[in-house]
Each structure stands twice: as structure tokens, then as C-alpha cells.
């Protein structure tokens, strides 16, 4: 099925020390070590190593079926991994439900956003965790905090936080979904194709939003098909191909063509001489000793 031999030919050499950016205060926020996931006989994820540092945007790219969704669902706690370890702030963790991941501070914004159109912005942001005073919803606290969170994210185009989400534009809806994650003190926000259905201006709203998240010290994983978006927001790029990590590294090591090469063939001649920091060939269990 997969062709590991293709990886043998890649220039990225195994065992290279990681760039210092990911290890300033010891462990990165999230680290995957040799993570694998099987569905029956299908090996959806094979030996994935990935560091997600706080305050940086990690773009996860790959063709359809490369395993992007499987990977983020593993991180989001939808299902446990079959192999390998997930380290959160250096400590190994195991997720048995999405709630386990949410409790740690991992928020996933799926493409459908999971917003109730008939509820207003405040109601959506606090859905499921409304503060109450003697059984009565504490609307004052909710509205004040919602406004503050949106202001922190520089969401300025929303005229009132009391308008129904159904009346918002695509970018604004995305902003509400992200603000909800921030409100819940997420340390890692995963965005699944946040710009897929958006026009040019709305896309820019969302990209600005991602910058704001980063500025607040939040780690961001963005799945994207759009290489322009990746180049606009990402600090690091992780390329998946056929369930394996084809390459991981700072954005500066990639250009659009090399990413496409890696997505389609798992290797790129353009990367020659500029090896990525990690590779699929790196032995599991010894990902990044300095």
C-alpha cells in the first residue's frame, strides 16, 4: 500500500536534531511520538512524529486521504491511537473521549463549526457551560466575557453579540467558533479547513484571526488545502502523505513547489541541501534529543 522505499530516497536524513524553536522551555506543548492508527487492515497513520509548539501556527497539509483528518481526530480524542505516544507539555496522555482532550485545553473547530444558527453569538459561545446564579442564566457575565474575547481577537465587524449566528457571514461564523474555543481557555486550537468555503475578504478575516490566536500564545494547527493560506499564516509546516509524515519543519524551508512535491510523491528535490528537521525515517522513541 504505502511505499516506504520512496522515503529512503529522500534527502532529509534521519536522526537530525530538531530546530531549537520547538524546545525553548523544555517540551513543546504537544508532541506526537511514533503515533499510528489502524482501521482494520488499513494503516491510516504510520509512525507520526510531530511537535506543536505554543504560540506558533503549524500547518498540516496533504492530499485527500493522506491522514490529516485521522491525525487531528486522534489529537482531539475522537479515538485513541494504536501505537506511539501523545505528550502534552512533556507528560504522556491518553484520550478516551473528546472531553479528555477538551479538558486539557485542546479545542477543535471542525469545518461545520457546530454553531446553532437560531442562537445568538453569546449563547453559542457559552453553549454547554453557561454560568448560572441560583438556576438563572447569568447573562451579564456571559455577554461581558463574550465581548471581551471577541475584542481580544479583533473581531470588529460583528455589530452586536446578540444577533443570531445564522445572520453572520462565513468568516464571522468561523470567528465565533474560534472565539468559543479561546473563551474555554484552549491552549491548542485545531482548525479544519477554516477557509475552504470562504471568499477572498472572508479568508483574510480568518487568517487575521489565526494571527491573533498566535499572538495570545495559543498553539494552532491548521489543516489547509490552500498553499497561499499556509504561506500567509504558518510558522511550521507538516506534510502528510499516505499516512506518513513526509516532512516537518519551519515554513522557511519549504516553498509552494516543494510542498506539492512532498504531498504528491513524498519527496522533493528542491529540499536537497536544506533538510527538514524531522522525517518519517526518524526512529520512533528517540524523536528529538538535543
Amino acid at each position, binding site marked *: 500500500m504505502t511505499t516506504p522505499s520512496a522515503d529512503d530516497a529522500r534527502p532529509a536524513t534521519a536522526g537530525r536534531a530538531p530546530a531549537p524553536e520547538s524546545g525553548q522551555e523544555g517540551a513543546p506543548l504537544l508532541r506526537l511520538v511514533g503515533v499510528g492508527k489502524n482501521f482494520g487492515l488499513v494503516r491510516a497513520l504510520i509512525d507520526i512524529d510531530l511537535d506543536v509548539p505554543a504560540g506558533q501556527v503549524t500547518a498540516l497539509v496533504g492530499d485527500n486521504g493522506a491522514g490529516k483528518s485521522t491525525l487531528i481526530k486522534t489529537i482531539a480524542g475522537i479515538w485513541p491511537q494504536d501505537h506511539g505516544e501523545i505528550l502534552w507539555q512533556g507528560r504522556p496522555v491518553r484520550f478516551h473521549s*473528546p*472531553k479528555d482532550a477538551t479538558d486539557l485545553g485542546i479545542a477543535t473547530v471542525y469545518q*461545520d*463549526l*457546530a*454553531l*446553532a*444558527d*437560531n*442562537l*445568538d453569538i453569546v*449563547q*453559542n459561545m457559552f*453553549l*454547554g*457551560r*453557561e454560568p*448560572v446564579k441560583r*438556576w*438563572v*442564566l447569568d*447573562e*451579564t457575565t456571559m*455577554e*461581558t466575557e463574550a465581548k471581551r474575547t471577541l475584542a481580544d481577537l*479583533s473581531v*470588529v*465587524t*460583528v*455589530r*452586536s*453579540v*446578540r*444577533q*443570531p449566528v*445564522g*445572520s*453572520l*457571514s*462565513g*468568516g*464571522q461564523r468561523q470567528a465565533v467558533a474560534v472565539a468559543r474555543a479561546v473563551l474555554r481557555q484552549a491552549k491548542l486550537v485545531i482548525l479544519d479547513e477554516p477557509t475552504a468555503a470562504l471568499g477572498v*475578504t*472572508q479568508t*483574510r*478575516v480568518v*487568517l*487575521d484571526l489565526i*494571527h*491573533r490566536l498566535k499572538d495570545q500564545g495559543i498553539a494552532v494547527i491548521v489543516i489547509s488545502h490552500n498553499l497561499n493560506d499556509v*504561506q*500567509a*499564516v504558518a510558522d511550521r509546516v507538516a506534510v502528510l502523505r499516505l499516512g506518513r509524515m513526509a516532512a516537518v519543519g519551519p515554513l522557511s524551508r519549504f516553498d509552494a513547489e516543494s510542498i506539492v512535491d512532498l504531498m504528491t510523491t513524498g519527496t522533493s528535490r528542491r529540499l536537497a541541501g536544506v533538510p527538514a528537521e524531522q522525517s518519517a525515517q526518524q526512529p520512533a522513541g528517540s524523536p528529538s534529543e538535543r
Partner: protein
Amino acid sequence: MSADVQPPPEADEVAEQTAAIAAPEVIADSFGEYAKIWWTRVRSGESGALPVILGLAAIVIYFQARSSLFLSAGNLVNLIEQAAWIVTLGMAEVFVLLLGEIDLSIGFSSVIGAVFTCWLLVPPNPAPWPLAVLVGLAFPALYSGIQGVIVTWLRLPSFVVTLAGYLFGQGFLLYIINVAAPGSGGTIRLYSNVLSDIESGAMSVTAGWIVMAVAVVLAGGLFVVRDGRRRASKLAAPPASVTWLKVAVMAVAGVVVVLIGNTNRGRFFTVVRGVPWVVLVILVVLVAYNFLLGRTRFGRYVYAIGGNAEAARRAGINLSRIRIAAFALCGLTAGIMGIIYSSLLGSVSANVPGGQNVLYAVAAAVIGGTSLFGGRGKMLGAVLGGVIVAVIYNGLQLLGLGAAPQAMWTAAVLLAAVTVDTVARRGQTTT
């Protein structure tokens, strides 16, 4: 890579567009602006109670033109008494309609509950009436609650499950009445004076004024204080003039109802006056349910599930619990209707048109702006919708016309209400 933080060019455009859709109290600063936004919303189908009230006014004017008796105090009190049960059953249906479900069984379960109440009150040694009422409420609550469990756990469509509940209820009503009152020809009398007085008794003239004044001052004071606080902490709130206008409308409505109730409606030499107790019952139920749906987590989750069940699930809401509770509340409210219904008729009979009653209840809720697809609707809407259904019934009876035109009129109004609502909504777009 640098962040260009400029408001996107279409920001103004978006703001314009949302102005047309967001509720006026959340964005207007002055009365004029409020009125303007409100009118824009009316045109785009987010109108709230206005079309219902206009429709009601049109129907009332028509009947008054045909028969000068229509707006007489006697007939209006009669109308209130007839409307009470439709209104209550309509409110019951709102709980499940908000979830995008339906409960067809309450037309019969409500009356079965009333049979139990009457049964417990049969003379030789009657139970205390509060206990009888409790049983009368508990049965339909349990009946709908169980159907809610089946709908939720087995993931069956509520239409089919409650249709089964409807058929079973129809049969069970026949059976239980014959057990409770054998040889009576399928009728059981309501012996409690307290319960009969809900519909046929009235408050004293003074009590009517006092109750009305207390209700208006309490509710109005709550509005004024709450909106004032929200304005003070810079939260979304209507302008002060609008708050006071609402209080004024409430006061006027209260005064009108009490004036009607307190006008002598006796014939010849008897004097009959006072607001029927049932008005107070409806008022209490309406306020309680408004609070439940508007100010508690339960209510918020009902709307959330109706709007987007998957989003609610991912937000960690226990969908099954909320759904089952909503069904049980629907049943409980139907139980209240059962008591009111038996109070109106003075008895419960096996040939109660339970199927027709529940369909009128759904019609009342939908005429009042509740969506059949869930997530949208208000208790007050069901009250106004129920009044419309009752006005048609009452007016046509007054004109000496029977059941045939009543059903056809109600059909026309229902269709008109849904059409106006849907067409207006189709005009608005969300990007």
C-alpha cells in the same frame, strides 16, 4: 506573513445586512432607530407577534361587523373560557416543537389524566382535590415522558411513536371511563367545586384589579430594572422608551381584560361579573414557562437542540435528558389542559375529540410562530395562536354556523400563517 489588521472592505455592508436581521433591542440606541429596525425585521419575517396580532384584529373586526354581540362582555368572557384549553394545549406542544419533534398523544392523555382526577373526587369518599390534580397532571406527564424515552433511546420518529400513543390513548380513555364510571354511558362528572370554579368561577371585582395591578407592577418593574441594569453595564438592551412602551402595553392589556371581566354579563336581573380564574392559571403557566425557556439552562438547551442537535451534542449537552424532560413537560402541560377542559365541561366524556384537539394545539403553536422544524417559537405565540383558533370557533358559533366552516376557517388561517412566515423568511439570505 505580517498581519494586516484592517477591517475588511465589506464591513459596512455586513453591518447593514445584519441590521435587517438582528433583533432591534440589540442594536438600536434611540426609539426612532428601534422602530426602523423593527419594521425592517417585520418585512423580512422576523416579526415576532405582529402578524398574529394583526390577523387576530382582522378576524375580530370581521366577526364584530357580522354580529354586534361578538365584542360584548358576556361573549368575550365566554371566549376566554373556550380559548383557555386550546392555549394550554398549544403551550404544551411548543416544548416538543422547539426540539423539532411532535406529540400527537396529548389530546387523549390530557383527558385521561382528567378522568383520574374526576375519579378520585367521586363523592362517597373523595380524595383532597390537590392530590387528584397531582394525579391528573402526573399521568400525561408520565405518558409523554415514556414516549420521549422511546423516541430518544430507540431513535424512532416522534410522529410515529406519538401516533401510537394517540391510538393507545383513544382506546385507554374508553376503557378507563367505563371502569371509573360503569353504566354511565361513558361520562364521568367533575364533583369538585374548586376545580369547576377554574372555568365557571370568577375573582371578585376588587380581586381582579388587585391581581392585575400586582402582576403589571411586578413584571413591569422587572423589565425596567433589568433593562436599566443592562444599559448601565453597556450590554445589549432596548432604549428606555421601548421598555416603558412594553410596560404600558402590558398595563393596557391587563386593564382591558379586567374591565371586560368586571362588566356585568348576567342576563335579566342576575349580576355576574369578575375575571374568570382560568385567566390567572394561564398567566401563571405562561410566566413560569417563559422563565423556564428564557432564563434557565434547560430552556437554552431546548432551543440549541432544535437549532442544531449536533452542535448541542458536541457542546456536551445531554440530549436524551433534555428531550425526555421536554416530552414530560409537554405531557404535564397537557395535564393542566385536561383539568381546564373538564372544568369547562363539568365532566369528561369518552367521545372527547382528542385527535382534533391536539391538531388544533399544533395549529395554535404554528400560527403563533413556532417552527415545526425546531429551534424557533415562543410560549406567548402559542397563547395568541390559541386565541385565534378560539375566536374563529366562537365567532362562527355566534353566527349560527357549525363545525364545518370552523374547521375550514382554521385551515385557511393556519395555511396563511405558515405561508406568510415562510415566504417572508425566504426573502432573507444568510451568507
